[in-house]
């Protein structure tokens, strides 16, 4: 489990089985992380993400970005569980498969946004900034 230095900053969880995602996110949000307004945490599977969320009551994670295609628990399964257990946490899906099945299922399950890979970091930044302004 990786956490940011600033505990006061807004915490976002990224779930993806590709470990290099963390490095990419940290570099993309380098400025935001530097101003200490944003904190990023990473989980590499659905179950790992749930474990992380269970650590604090209520969890300090405000927002989750999750991949759909993962071995074991998929992003959609994670979405359902998060929505069930932590209804306050907003969650958006990022998928390589931008088909209507996945999209509809995600939206029905209460996903805030549906992003397709390759990730458009500009729109992702906009989403994060909008979240931070709240």
């Amino acid at each position, binding site marked *: 489990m990786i956490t940011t230095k600033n505990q006061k900053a807004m915490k976002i969880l990224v779930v993806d089985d590709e470990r290099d995602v963390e490095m*990419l996110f940290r*570099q993309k949000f*380098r400025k935001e992380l530097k101003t200490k307004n944003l904190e990023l945490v990473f989980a590499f599977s659905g179950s790992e993400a749930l474990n992380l969320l269970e650590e604090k009551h209520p969890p300090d994670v405000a927002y989750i970005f999750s991949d759909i295609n993962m*071995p074991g628990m998929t992003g959609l399964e994670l979405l359902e569980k998060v929505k069930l257990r932590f209804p306050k946490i907003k969650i958006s899906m990022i998928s390589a*498969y931008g088909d209507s099945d*996945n999209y509809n299922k995600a939206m029905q399950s209460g996903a805030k946004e549906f992003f397709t890979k*390759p990730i458009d970091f500009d729109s992702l930044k906009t989403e994060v900034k909008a979240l931070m302004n709240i």
Partner: protein
Amino acid sequence: MKNKFKILAGFILIIFHSQLMYAQNTKIDSLDNLLISATSDTARINLIVEKVELISSFNLDSAINLATKTLAEAQRIGFHKAEVTLRKRLVYNYSYKGNFSAALEQLNDLEQIIIPTNDSLEYAGVYAGWGIYYGIQSKYDSSIYFYEKSIFIYERNDIKDQLGRSYSNIAIGYQQKSNFPMALYYQQKSLKLREENENESGQAYTLVNIANTYLSMGDIERSEEAFLKSIELAKKTELKNVELYAYTNLSSLYFDEEEWQKSFDIAMKAAELGKKMGDQGIQAASLAKASRALVKMGQAEKARKISEKAIAIADSSGQPVNISQANASMGYLLLSEKNWGKAIPFYESAFEAVKDADIFTPNIGMLYKELSTCYENTGSYSKALKLYKQYATNSDSVWSKENVQKATELAMNFEFEKKEQSAKARQAQKDEIARTRQIALIIGLVLSIIIILGSLRAYYNKQKANTLLREQKKEIERTLSKLKKTQSQLIQSEKMASLGELTAGIAHEIQNPLNFVNNFSEVSNELIDEMNEEMEKGDLDEAKAIAKDVKQNLEKINHHGGRAEAIVKNMLQHSRSDGGVKVPANINKLADEYLRLAYHGLRAKDKSFNSDFKTDLDASIGEVNVIPQDIGRVILNLITNAFYAVDERNKNTNDSNYKPLVLVSTQKKGKLVEIIVKDNGNGIPDEIKDKIFQPFFTTKPTGKGTGLGLSMSYDIVTKGHGGKLKVESKEGEGTTFTIEIPV
């Protein structure tokens, strides 16, 4: 033959055969008995006609009396057939008696009653009558003429007994004209016919005449043989007249052979028999012969008496030859006594008697010679010369080489023919045996041919069967090669199918590293900008930190580029159809890649599919010598199957706690490397466990699987790598496939 050209002393007495039936005294007795009980006139006349025929063979006068009497009766009741037979008989008997006017009268009457009938066979009978009438008068040209006519009719109607008689009688004419070839020709025909008919009395007649011909030719041996045979048959059949003629002529033969006593004895025997039979002609001739024999024996007085008696009897017989012969015998006696002058009138009488006859025999020639001698000795040289010339002409003609040769040839031919016949009989027997053998041979041959044909047929059938077998073999081979081709195509399509199934997964697996490449290069670009900003601000530490990140990013770009490249490489290798070569390969990496490929492939295809998967890879196995694409295929196949199995179970189970899991692990075990693919699916039912490696065996629905995956995997592991592919399965617990590859 020493006597071949010797002139015979005395005439050969000839006998015309006229009997329809043959003399048997016992038969006459039985006929008399029948006559007593005969009821009708015709039956009685028929019996009498038969009796006349029989009597004719030994007593001409009685026969003539009885015939004349019966003829009147037959005429009275209009019995045509009997009338014809009786008149014919009278013609013969009058002729024998020398009563030619009576014979001629009968002949004319015969013609009168036969003409209206227009019956050719009855005409033939009349012709034969004329033949005898002229023949006995020694008018042989006429005799031959009529006999030819009768023979023509008889031959046309194939009347064998009449032909035998006519042949024999026409031959007498030829013989008397010294035409031996023709004589023998007809006599042989006659004898042959009568031998065929087993007519012994007929043979006796013919033989006596044949003997005469041989005698005329000077062929003594054959002549004597024929005479003796004739006598034997004549006695056997009670044929007195033939016996008589044979005796008298045999006498001439013995005379010719200078056996005087023998000649005399037999001549006297003939004379006596002739007298008994009332045949004066033959009696006279026999006496004449006896006289000559006596002359030779030096008994002149006895000879004179006998010759005188002969002349007297001959004159009353009216037969020219016999008259001539009787007179000549007296002439001969006087000649031997050198009483030339007295001899001449007798000789002249002898010639006078035969002047109208067509006789041209050696006897006549002899008479010319004897008379010539008489004239010579009495000084009548011109007469002597003339007569001698006639003798010479006669002799030349009679003894002409051609005549005798031809006849001899004929005689020889006849014997040869007989020998030939017996030879033929023997030959026929031999032929029969040969034929039997031939038939056996032919049967053998035919059987052989059948066997050969059968064998040929069998051989042909076998060939045909072989050809068929060869064709079938070719067909099977063609089919096999087609199947092999199809199989390789199937394997290829199986490869492509497994790849196709994974296309989406592959795309995903490529897309991910490409995304990283793009993202890392993009972010690096941004970082360079920031780094410049920091450097302008003078914050070198921050710039250095950014530079460090950029360097890291470049490494990531390289890493993900390599990842994409490896996937593409594997994909190409996977679809390659040619047999690869063994190269050292990282089995762990291979297993990991294919696991991901399979997972993402199945995920991409079926959104509902999900399964956890884990790897437990033994880093110590290092690189193993394998054909990477082949082992990759096997691993992919086993993993795909494992995912399918867990997904099936997941979809059909009510157990919410069921977590599908596929575990891929590697481990080193001595000289073996094991690759284990384990799933927690339904497991393989026992009943199909031993079928799973068979080609085309599949439990998947139609169109979902080729059924070649495991069989292909089995071949790759066992044949391609000398390893083993093991399966362990428990229903409801899962399946474990283990690949063992020797290091």
